């Protein structure tokens, strides 16, 4: 098999993926091997000593939430003494935005790729501002997580099962025509999925007060769909792993310290480099002095051709993330088409005469052109406990792709 054949297989599997949101269940039921004191995080592997401020904030917060520590101070001491075990979400079929905390009692959304039978998981989006994914960890943040665990998660599970699942590919296709790129803009898809779920939520939620809270929570969160899209991305990409001689990227993820990529032909090995600082716009009262380096598994969105790769579908996001005028949005997508194998005809962009989103990042093209994948991202405060302070654009470090290229060449016997 040639590299070209292998990459055709990789993209074919991406395009044949049929992701559907099928359930919401507690993490301990969903994920094999998840137990007490095991904390899954975003990005490549990371020890407590190397964690950035927001990641430490989230770890201590989730430890208190799970009852593994009585307060944040005790949780920090426990973490520093090795009381918790840490592992990447990607190793457990999961993804998580920003800090990406996944632990036993959180409800996880389940996306099944019907074409290949694999499942991927992601926690429910908490909303914007002071939330755990941005390192928020106080009582308000933990109380919201409890409500998600006790009320929202079970209700969503009932509604999704009553709907017999929600196909996501066509929903995302519609979202692209309505101005979403599925990373920093999910207004359309959040509305579309709420429209699908609302009748089932009404039929399966006994308490009218809970129903009203649930509808208000989802309706008030423009990024509700982000976590659905991330589980979708993971479900699409996992069957693309381990194709001999394929140079297609299967995952990109950051942990606030390092950026990591995985490539089909080199299996589950991470290729890492120090993560870069996003350039973007800040909420009132904050500036780049407050910003933490980039983090989160949400780059799985760009890995499947959305987010920064689909910027042309979402001129509004170009302004939101400080990427320049709306007219520049097309250039981002055109540039990403230079580092991808193909395009996705089912995810078409109206402003580009319905050209499909760039699909299948080829490490050879990234290294050859020097064009690093463009990522639309949220910006967290560098101190634990504060939360989101802005949104911006960041480039994947070229070093990851260069390392991957050398390893790939060695694996196939090319010196």
């Amino acid at each position, binding site marked *: 098999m040639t*590299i070209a054949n292998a990459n055709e297989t990789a993209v074919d599997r991406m395009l044949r993926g049929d992701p559907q949101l099928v359930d919401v269940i507690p993490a301990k039921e969903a994920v094999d091997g998840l137990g007490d004191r095991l904390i899954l995080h975003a990005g490549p592997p990371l020890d407590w000593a190397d964690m950035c401020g927001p990641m430490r904030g989230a770890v201590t917060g989730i430890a208190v939430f799970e009852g593994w520590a009585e307060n944040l101070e005790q949780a920090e001491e426990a973490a520093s003494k090795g009381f918790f075990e840490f592992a990447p979400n990607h190793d457990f079929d999961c993804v998580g935005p920003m800090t990406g905390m996944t632990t036993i009692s959180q409800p996880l959304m389940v996306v099944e790729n019907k074409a290949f039978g694999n499942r991927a998981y992601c926690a429910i989006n908490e909303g914007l501002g002071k939330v755990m994914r941005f390192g928020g960890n106080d009582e308000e943040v933990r109380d919201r997580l409890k409500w998600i665990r006790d009320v929202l998660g079970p209700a969503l599970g009932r509604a999704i099962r009553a709907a017999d699942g929600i196909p996501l590919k066509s929903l995302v296709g519609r979202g692209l025509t309505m101005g979403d790129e599925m990373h920093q803009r999910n207004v359309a898809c959040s509305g579309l999925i709420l429209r699908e779920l609302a009748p089932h939520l009404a039929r399966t939620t006994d308490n009218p007060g809970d129903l009203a809270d649930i509808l208000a929570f989802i309706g008030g969160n423009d990024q509700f769909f982000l976590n659905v899209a991330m589980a979708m991305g993971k479900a699409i990409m996992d069957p693309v792993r381990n194709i001999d001689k394929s140079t297609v990227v299967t995952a990109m993820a950051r942990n606030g310290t390092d950026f990591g990529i995985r490539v089909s032909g080199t299996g589950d090995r991470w290729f890492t480099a120090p993560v870069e600082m996003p350039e973007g716009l800040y909420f009132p009262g904050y500036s780049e002095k407050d910003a933490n380096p980039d983090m989160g598994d949400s780059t799985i969105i760009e890995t499947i051709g959305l987010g920064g790769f689909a910027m042309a579908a979402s001129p509004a996001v170009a302004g939101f993330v400080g990427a320049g005028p709306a007219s520049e949005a097309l250039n981002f997508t055109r540039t990403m088409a230079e580092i991808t194998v193909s395009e996705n005809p089912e995810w078409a962009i109206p402003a580009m005469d319905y050209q499909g989103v760039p699909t299948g990042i080829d490490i*050879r093209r990234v*290294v*050859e052109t020097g064009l690093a994948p463009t990522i639309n991202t949220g910006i967290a405060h560098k101190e634990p406990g504060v939360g989101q302070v802005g949104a911006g654009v960041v480039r994947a470090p070229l070093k990851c792709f260069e390392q991957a*290229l050398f390893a790939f*060449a060695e694996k196939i016997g090319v010196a």
Partner: protein
Amino acid sequence: MSGSKDRKPSANLKLLDSEVRVVNVGLVQFAGDLRDQGVKVVHVDWAPPAGGDVKLARLLSKLED
């Protein structure tokens, strides 16, 4: 040898007698400088493979389709 007054313009100089139109390849700053002087420029966004890193470029040539 004839004096400089009698020297016929070379082909290159003739080119500059007419309107100058430039295709700029590589460094975008050159295109910007010419544009600032009212010269029509088409810029071609080009860089050597792998940013000029010979080791990487050689490896890429062995990893073609």
